C-alpha cells in the first residue's frame, strides 16, 4: 500500500535539495528585513544553505554502487549523483562568493538573486538524480527558468535583457523539442521511468521511434550543453549575462546537463551505441572545431571564454564517444576541473568590473600584471589549465579523454583532439598577451575583495592541486562512476 506521504528515509535522500529550497525561501523573506548595506547577509545565508546541503549530501556519500532509489524510482541517490551534487554545490558556493562585490557595483544587490541560485541548484541536483522523465523535465525547467531570470537580472542593462530573451526563446524552443522527444520515449515504453524505457530500448518494437526519440532528446540536451550546431545561444548569453551568472551557467548548468546527458545516453540509449557513436564523434569534432576556431578572433573575454567552453564541450563529449570507464571518468574529472578553472577565469573578469567599466573586453585586461599581479598570475594558471597544459587539472582531464579515445581506438579523433590544443593555446594566450605584454591603458588597480579572494584561492588550489596531488581527485572521479550509469 503506497502512502501518500514520503517516509523519513526517502526525505533524507532529498534532504540536500530540501535545505537549499528552505534557505532559498528564507532568503526571500530575510531580504525584506535587510537594509541596502546589509545585503551581503543574503549571500551569507545562501552560503549557509549550500553548506547545510553539503552536509546532508556528505551523509549520503556511502550509498552503494547501484544507488538508493527514492520516490518509487523517480530519483536515485548514487555516487554519480553525489559527485555531481558536490560539484553543483561547490560551483554555487564559488559563484556566490564572486557575486557579492559584483552586485554591489551593479547596484542590484537583492535577495532574489541568491534565492534563484539556490533554486537553480535544486533543479540541477534533481537533474543529476532524476531517473524519471517527468522529474528530469521539471528539474531541467526549474534550472533553466532560474537561469533565464538570472541572465536577465540586470534589467537596466540592454545586453543582459537581450541575452535573457535569446536564452529564453532558444531554451524554450529546445525544451519543446526535448519534451517532444520525451513524449516519444513515453510512447515507446508506456512509462516515464528510465529503467523501463531502457528495457524498451533493449527490445525495441521498431527501429524508427528510438531514432526519433534519440534525435529529439539529443538535440535538446546538446542545446543545453552547447554542442554544435545547437550552441549558438552560448556566446551571446555568456557575453550578456552578469559575469557571475556567466560563470555559473558555463560551469554548473553545463555539468548538470552533462549529468543528465550521460545518464540518458548510458542508461537509455546505450543499446543503440553503434548508431550514435559515430554521430556523437562527429558532433564532438564539429564542436571542438567551431568552438576553437571561432574563439580565435574574439575581442571580448567573456565571449572568448564562451567559445572556448564550447570547445570544452567537444572534449567532454569525446569521453562519451569512447564510452569506456576511462572516458566516463574523464568526463567526470573534466567537468570537475572545468568547474574550478573556468570559474577562476571568470573570477578575474569579475574583478575588473567596477563603476563605469564593464571590464570584459580584451583591452580591459591590458597591463593587468602591473595593476594586480596576483590576478594576472592566477589568470595565467587558469588559462593554462583551460588549454590543457600541465601542471594543471585541465591537463589531467584531457589526459583521460585522450587515453579513453586511444583505448577505444578512435585514433583520428584523438589526433584532432590533441591538435586542437594548439589553437586553444593561441586564443587563451591572447588574453595573456593583453595582461602581461600590453601597457596598461587604465590606471585603476582592481582590488580583490575577501570573498573573491576565498573563491580564487579555492579555484587555484584545485586547479593546481588536481594534478600535483591528483590522487584524491582521481579517486573522486572514479567514485562517481560507481553509480548505475556504468554498464
Amino acid at each position: 500500500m503506497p502512502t501518500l506521504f514520503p517516509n523519513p528515509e526517502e526525505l533524507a535522500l532529498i534532504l540536500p535539495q530540501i535545505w537549499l529550497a528552505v534557505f532559498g525561501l528564507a532568503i526571500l523573506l530575510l531580504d525584506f528585513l535587510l537594509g541596502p548595506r546589509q545585503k551581503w547577509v543574503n549571500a551569507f545565508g545562501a552560503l549557509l544553505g549550500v553548506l547545510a546541503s553539503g552536509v546532508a549530501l556528505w551523509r549520503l556519500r556511502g550509498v552503494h554502487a547501484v544507488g538508493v532509489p527514492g520516490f518509487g524510482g523517480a530519483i536515485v541517490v548514487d555516487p554519480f549523483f553525489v559527485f555531481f551534487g558536490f560539484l553543483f554545490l561547490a560551483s554555487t558556493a564559488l559563484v556566490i562568493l564572486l557575486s557579492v562585490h559584483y552586485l554591489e557595483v551593479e547596484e542590484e544587490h537583492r535577495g532574489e538573486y541568491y534565492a534563484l541560485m539556490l533554486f537553480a541548484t535544486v533543479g540541477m541536483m534533481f537533474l543529476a538524480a532524476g531517473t524519471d522523465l517527468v522529474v528530469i523535465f521539471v528539474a531541467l525547467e526549474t534550472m533553466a527558468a532560474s537561469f533565464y531570470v538570472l541572465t536577465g537580472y540586470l534589467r537596466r542593462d540592454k545586453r543582459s535583457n537581450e541575452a535573457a530573451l535569446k536564452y529564453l526563446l532558444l531554451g524554450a524552443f529546445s525544451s519543446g523539442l526535448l519534451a517532444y522527444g520525451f513524449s516519444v520515449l513515453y510512447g515507446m515504453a508506456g512509462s516515464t521511468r528510465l529503467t523501463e524505457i531502457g528495457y524498451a530500448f533493449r527490445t525495441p518494437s521498431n527501429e524508427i521511434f528510438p531514432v526519433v526519440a534519440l534525435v529529439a532528446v539529443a538535440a535538446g540536451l546538446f542545446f543545453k550543453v552547447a554542442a554544435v550546431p545547437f550552441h549558438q545561444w552560448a556566446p551571446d548569453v555568456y557575453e550578456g549575462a552578469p559575469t557571475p551568472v556567466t560563470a555559473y551557467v558555463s560551469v554548473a548548468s553545463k555539468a548538470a546537463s552533462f549529468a543528465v546527458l550521460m545518464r540518458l545516453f548510458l542508461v537509455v540509449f546505450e543499446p543503440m551505441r553503434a548508431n550514435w557513436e559515430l554521430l556523437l564523434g562527429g558532433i564532438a569534432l564539429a564542436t571542438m572545431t567551431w568552438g576553437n576556431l571561432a574563439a580565435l578572433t574574439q575581442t571580448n573575454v567573456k565571449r572568448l571564454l564562451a567559445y572556448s567552453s564550447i570547445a570544452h564541450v567537444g572534449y567532454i563529449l569525446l569521453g562519451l564517444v569512447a564510452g569506456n570507464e576511462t572516458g566516463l571518468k574523464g568526463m567526470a574529472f573534466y567537468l570537475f576541473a572545468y568547474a574550478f578553472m573556468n570559474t577562476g577565469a571568470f573570477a578575474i573578469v569579475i574583478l575588473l568590473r567596477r563603476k563605469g567599466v564593464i571590464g570584459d573586453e580584451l583591452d580591459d585586461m591590458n597591463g593587468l600584471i602591473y595593476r594586480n599581479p596576483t590576478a594576472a598570475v592566477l589568470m595565467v594558471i587558469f588559462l593554462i589549465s583551460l588549454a590543457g597544459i600541465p601542471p594543471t587539472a585541465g591537463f589531467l582531464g584531457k589526459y583521460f579523454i585522450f587515453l579513453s579515445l586511444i583505448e577505444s581506438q578512435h585514433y583520428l579523433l584523438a589526433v584532432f583532439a590533441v591538435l586542437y590544443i594548439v589553437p586553444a593555446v593561441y586564443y587563451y594566450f591572447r588574453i595573456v598577451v593583453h595582461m602581461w605584454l600590453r601597457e596598461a591603458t587604465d590606471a585603476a588597480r582592481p582590488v580583490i575583495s575577501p570573498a573573491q579572494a576565498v573563491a580564487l584561492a579555492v579555484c587555484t588550489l584545485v586547479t593546481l592541486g588536481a594534478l600535483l596531488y591528483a590522487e584524491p581527485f582521481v579517486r573522486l572521479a572514479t567514485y562517481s562512476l560507481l553509480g548505475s550509469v556504468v554498464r
Partner: protein
Amino acid sequence: MTTPLPYFLDSIWLIPLFPLGTAALMLFFGRRLPNSAVSMLCVGSVLVSFVYSVGAFLQLRAWPFAALGYWPEKVLFDWVSLGAYHTDTRQLAQFTAEWGFLLDPLSAVMILVVTGVGLLIHIYSIGYMGHEGGYYRFFGYMNLFMFSMLTLVLANNLLLMFVGWEGVGLCSYLLIGFYFLRKSASDAGKKAFIVNRVGDAGFLLGIFLTAATLGTIKFAELGPAIQQMGLSVGAPALTAIGLLLFVGATGKSAQLPLYTWLPDAMEGPTPVSALIHAATMVTAGVYMVTRTNAIYQMAPEALAVVAIVGALTAFYAATMGLVQNDIKRVLAYSTISQLGYMFLACGVGAYIAGIFHLMTHAFFKALLFLAAGSVIHALSGEQDMQKMGALWNRVPVTARTMFVAALAIAGIPPLAGFFSKDEILWKTWSSGGIGQILWLLGAVTALLTAFYMFRLINLTFFGQSRVPKEVDHHVHESPAVMTAPLVVLAVLSVVGGWVGIPAALGGSNHFEHWLEPVISQPAGVARAVALADEAHHDPAEYVLMVVSVLLALLGIGLARYIYIRREGLADQLAARWCGLHRLLFRKYYVDELYDALFVNRAKDLGTTLAAFDRHVIDGWGVDGSAWFTRFTSRVSIWWDTWIVDGLVNLTAWVVGVFSYPFRWLQTGRVQNYALVFALGVLILLAYYLRGIL
C-alpha cells in the same frame, strides 16, 4: 717492452709546449708587457724549443732502431678514444687517438727546420715588427703557430696531426689578417682559412677512411695494418685514402686547384710569409704525404695523381710568377711552384728527395722572403717592383744575400737548391712511365724559375732606379737584428744541400740514409727507389744535371737580357702577346672563376633558401593558406604591408581566415540560431533515416 728514454727524447712533448706557453701568455696578458719582454719571452721560448730539438736530434742519432725496431714515442694520454667500431672488413676495431709524439728521422728533420728557421724569422721579426701596433699579438700568433706546426710534425697519429694542421691554418688566418684594419688583409685571411677547410674536409674524410680501412690511425701502425688486412697494391680503399689525404695536402700546400689563397696571403706581414707561407706550413702537405708513405706506396694511382698535380702546379705557378709585379707575389708563385716540385718528388716515390727539397727550400725561400721584407722595409712598405731598381749598393747585405738565395733556387751548383732540385728531376726521369714527360715539365719550370727569380733580382737591385722621390731619401739598410738572420740563412742556402750530395757526385748522401728507415718499401712498389739504386752510375744522371744547370743559366741570362740590356723589351713582349700576358697577369682568371662558380653560388643559394624559408615553409607548410595568398596579387599587397609593418602577425591572419566564417554564422539574430538548430535536427534525422531507408 719499454725502454727508458733519454732526456731529450722523453721531453719531445715539451718542444711544442714552450711556444704555446708564451703564446697563451701573450694573448692574455701581452697587452701589459713591454715590447722587450715580449721579444725576450717569445724568441726565448723558440730558442729553447730549438735547443730541445737539437738535443733530441742528437739523441735520436744514437737510437738503436735496428735493434729495437721502433722509434721513440711519447704518449701523454688518450685524447679521443671512442671505443669499438666496424672496419670496412667488418672487423671490430678500437678508435684511439692519443696525445702522442713520435720522433723519427723524418720528424727530427722537420723540427730542426721548423724551430731553426722559425728562430731566425723570430729574430728578424723583432726588427721588422718593432714599430707595428699589436706587437705582442703578433708574437702570440707566431708562437701559437710554432706550437701548431710542431704538433703537426711530431704527432704520432693522423688525428693529432690534424690538430696541428688546423692550428697552422688558423694561425695563418690570424697572421694574414694581422693587419686587420685592412679589408683586403682580413679577406685574404678568411679566404686562406676557408680554402684550407675545403682541403681539410678531404683530410678528415681521409682519416675516416683510414680508420675504416685499417682500423688504426697511428703512423707507426699503418704499414703493419696494411699487411694484416691483406690489402694488395692498388687496393681501391688505399687509393681513395691517398687521394683524400692529398686533397688535404693540396689545400694546405697550395696545389692545383686550391692554390688561390696563397698569393692573397701575402697581405700578411713579411715574416709571416717567410715562416708560414714559405718555410713551414705550406710544406705540411709534403710532410704528410711522406709521413703516410706506407699508404701511398701501396697506392700507385694516387701517387701518380700526386706527381701529375705536383708537376702541373710547378709549371703553372711558374708561368704566373713570370709577370707579377708585386715582389711578394712573385715569391708566392715561386713557392707554389717549388711545392709542386716536392709533390712531384713524392709522386714518383722519391719522398726523401721531396723532404730534401723541402729543407733547402725552407732555407732559401725564407731568405728570399726576409730579404724581400728587408727591401720593403727599406722602401717604406713599397712592394711593387716597378717602383724599385738599382738598390744593389743601397741595401748591400740584403741584396747580396738575396742574390745568393736566387742562385740557390735557380739551381746553380753547388748551392743547396741545385742538389735537391736535381735529385728530384733525376728521380722523376728515372721513374719510368710518364716520368719523362714530368721531367720535361720540371725542367721547363726550372728555366722559368731561374728567369722570374732573376727578373725579380734585376728589377729590384739593378737597372735604373724607379724609386719615387719621396721614398728615395728614406732608403736604408735594415738593422743588424734583421740582417743577421739573412746572413745565417744565406750560409744555409749555400751549404744546406751538402748533406745530400748524391753518390754520383762523389757524395755519400747522408740525408737519404738518415731518412731511409721511415720510408716503407713493400716488395712490389720499390720500383722507383730500386731503379735509382741500380742506375747508380747511369750517365744519364750527369747529362740531366748539366741540362738543368744550363737551363738555369739560360733563364738567368734571358732575364738579364730582357730587363737590363734591353729595357723596354719586356713591355714590347707584353704588348705583343697581350692576351697571354693578361691571362697570366690575371692569374688565369681562376679567382674570378671560383667566385662565380662557388662563392657567389653559395651566397645565392643562401639567399634563395632564406627566401624559401620565409615564403614557402612559413608561408605554406606552417601557415597553410599563405600559399594561396602569394598567388593572389591583391592579397599579397596586404601581405607585404603586414610583413613590413610587423603589426599583424601571419598566424593571426590565417586563424582569422578560419575564424571569421564561424563568427559570421553568429549573426546575433536569435532566429538564425534557431534555424541552425533546426538544420542540425534535419541533419541528425537524415543521418539516421538514411540508415533505415
